[in-house]
């Protein structure tokens, strides 16, 4: 089974939302800044719960923030 790739637009969205810092996003989404860094770098795929929380911070749907490239 080929490995599924999940990409995201978090970095872009942070800048579009008043240049929100990673720290601010982490605090609003309920995770650590290191996790936001890892997600942005594509080193960590968040759980559905965290993905929803991050999307909610930007006021968007999950699929507008994360893209599945299976």
């Amino acid at each position, binding site marked *: 089974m080929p490995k599924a790739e999940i990409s995201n637009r978090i970095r872009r969205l942070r800048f579009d939302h008043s240049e929100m810092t990673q720290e601010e996003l*982490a*605090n609003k989404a*309920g*995770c*650590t800044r*290191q*996790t936001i*860094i*890892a997600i942005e*770098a594509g*080193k*960590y795929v*968040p*759980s559905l*719960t*965290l993905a929803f929380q991050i999307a909610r911070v930007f006021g968007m749907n999950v699929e507008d923030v994360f893209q599945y490239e299976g």
Partner: protein
Amino acid sequence: MTPLQKRAWLGLGVGVGMSLAILAVFIARGVTSFDDDLVLRGITYVLCVGGLLVYGVTLRIKRRKPGRSEVLVDERDEKIIKRATMVQLWAVLLSLFIWAIALTEAYWGEKSVPIIFAYLIAISGLIVSIIGQAIGILIGYRRMS
């Protein structure tokens, strides 16, 4: 550095420190003197129980900063510690099998093993457990950062 990474470095320090302490004690007093040397037995017991207590203290992790909403440990940290626990388990199992094979081969002719090895196995199991988990955590962060 996350609290879990700090704990891993602390664990690594405790593990290496305990190893050096054990080596120093047994080199200074001699392994074979365990049966007759009450002081050596006392030191061995203190290292066993003390090491376990120190390790217990390092297991405590604050999830949030007191009075603040900032998260210190999240799902990524929990995933890393779960994987590190598997590394820890395999490291301990491996060390036990190495002890079993080494002692069997070394004392095959005598059909019995000196009592000191019961403590050495216990202490080494603790040390391997501490170091194994610490290494597992550090590898986890390296892969997921």
